[in-house]
């Protein structure tokens, strides 16, 4: 009987310890993953060049990994910024602007040359995913054309 009692007490304490331990682990992982995914957007440096006008070809230096978070990019204008974050300056302006009568008086030349490009970002860690967006502005290359009035 005494052995049974000891066994029961050990079993009881084990249950309590195991259940406490599991709870702590689950909560920590859940909290950490979401925070890590937020951190990946805020601290990985992916948004570094969203504040400047990009005036040359080449890599934006986008991070593809941050503390174990895998980061992928999907550009909405792949001709200008590829999914790998490589810039190819366009050969034409973004928008040709004219007055409200549609007349090209020259007054609005170069008003809207630079292209806004949105990139959709996916961040993944241990099966959890977050999305984000980046917006870069890219200037057309030297000697660009601007004869694409849509109005």
């Amino acid at each position, binding site marked *: 009987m005494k052995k049974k009692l000891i066994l029961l*007490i050990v079993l009881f304490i084990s249950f309590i310890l195991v259940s406490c331990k599991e709870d702590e682990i689950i909560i920590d992982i859940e*909290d950490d993953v979401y925070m890590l995914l*937020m951190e990946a957007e805020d601290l990985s440096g992916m948004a570094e060049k969203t504040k400047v006008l990009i005036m040359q070809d080449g890599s934006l230096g986008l991070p593809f990994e941050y503390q174990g978070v895998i980061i992928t990019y999907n550009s909405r204008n792949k001709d200008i910024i590829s999914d790998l974050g490589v810039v190819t300056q366009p050969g034409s302006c973004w928008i040709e602007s004219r*007055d409200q009568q549609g007349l090209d008086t020259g*007054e609005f030349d170069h008003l809207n040359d*630079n292209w806004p490009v949105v990139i959709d970002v996916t961040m993944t860690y241990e099966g959890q995913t977050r999305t*984000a*967006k980046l*917006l870069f*502005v890219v200037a057309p290359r030297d000697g660009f054309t601007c004869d694409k009035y849509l109005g």
Partner: protein
Amino acid sequence: MKKIMIGLLMILSLTFLLPKWNVFGADLIVYTDDDYQRLHAVIQHVDNVLKYGHEYNEETDLLPDAINTLTGEPAKWTFPNRAQVPYADLANQQNFLRTLVGLSKVTGSNTYKNEAVDILTEFMSNYQNPNGLFYWGGHRAVNLDTLEVQSTEGPNGPHELKNMMPYYELMLEVNEEATLKFMRQLWTAHFYWNTTDMNRHGSYSTGYDTNVFGQTIPDDVIVMDNFGNPIIPADSPGLLPFVNSATDLAYAAFALSDYTYDSIPAEWAKYLMKQYNLASNPVTGMTVYQFKSTLVTKSSIECADPAYTNSGCGDRVARQFRDFGTIAREANVAWKNTQAIYVDNILMLLEAAKKYGVDHFVDWSRQYMEGYLENAYIRVDGKNMIIPMFIDGTVTYGYVVPEVGYFGPSNMRLDYVPMPTSYLLPILRTILQTEEDSDRVKLWSYFRDIVYTFGLGDIGELGGANPNLNVDTSIDDPFALMAMVELYDATKNKEYLEVARTIGNNIVREKFQRGFFVDSEIMLYSRLDQPDTLALLSLDAVLRGIDLAEMPFYLADSGYIHGYLLADDGVTEDRSYTQNVIYTKTIYDWE
């Protein structure tokens, strides 16, 4: 020994059961002193509004739209002839009426509801035009000195409601005949049955139509082109179906059908809302502010000046943003008037789905919200923002407007648009009213990011598991409060309730000033339509175990007065809104 073993076994069993008890125990809430202090602040505010509001003119039960928190006097509209008129515009007091009823619910005293009944009784008995329209809205109010109707838009200002969504349940209780007549005449005065045009302005001269809703519902206005894209007709002679007016029309029709058991008004409301759905972009899912463009009725000479923005010169976005081609239409703008589209309209759609059984409105709400957030929502410098774009996803960020026009001055550069906290409610309510978890995932993930970025912490996984909320948040916002209360109500996770309490405490600390709720400590006027008290009462209700469905529900606080007034220079005539001339005044502006 046997007893010890039985005891241990019982403890062991209890240990296994405990987690489940925690869930059940979520309803066992201790009402704290802080909880009482918040309610006490609401009671003080309401008592002060009633005291000072009634004191000004004891011959009426009507209250002013706003009260000067330094003097207790009503806010006044200064007409171009310098007459200063204290005004009562009941369309702008709907949240106060809801607050009064909510306060009666949580206190168990009918005193407050009776005040609301008295106010409405006087208003509905004395300020309804024989044609059924009430004297309220954007251009009409009651002069609290003379108790005469006053127009702010010339001598005969029209009837205008934009997302005001009156408290019809109470109005029907107070004066059934007047309310039903109003709901019917709202359509007669604003909707053109034969052409499906709509006018935000309704005339007080339009006769009451006993055969309202008697016409056959016509074919859809919106048809698709060969590529499956909606064709927005440009045939509206200045009568544009703005969604903010349509939202009020639809809400009235649903309430009317619900009350009379006549399904026809609701069918018209569904027809009207369907046009916005048909006009939405088939690829992005984003929807429109209007489903028609204006017919050009003015000559090219008249319209040569870009500063002349009369709608008779055609679609005002097609004029000012013509560089973008055919997508540039007023209907397709997704950076302006978005509160009307993605907040007020969606809250009405969801209310109609919940109360009146229009289930497909939940799907539409999800389509609109998902489309908008997926395409345009962005976090910039730790803030929730919207990328300006047209509804097909054409980005307009950085665009410099060449010439002046309806949307702003020349050389205006389009930048990110801040996302206000009011977006929390339509997103959350869409999630909560969506049946399948798999359909909730995308919106929850945006909602989670948006809440986090507003400084509330992590709401956790879909369904409310494992939140890691910022219980010390400094946010003092009624929409954040309502969102946390509604999250708690749906999940019974007490962590949401604790954050709700923190937000509630913040609201009282920051906004309860001089005995009134104001937008911030320095603001002069306390506005009756403010949503803070209603939000605080929804928190108080769940703390007391009152079903949220029993409480008056927040739908909008868009009330305003628009019209002619004396400019700040004290000499010239200006045309503006109460939001610009009254609710911007601070205590330092008062001499």
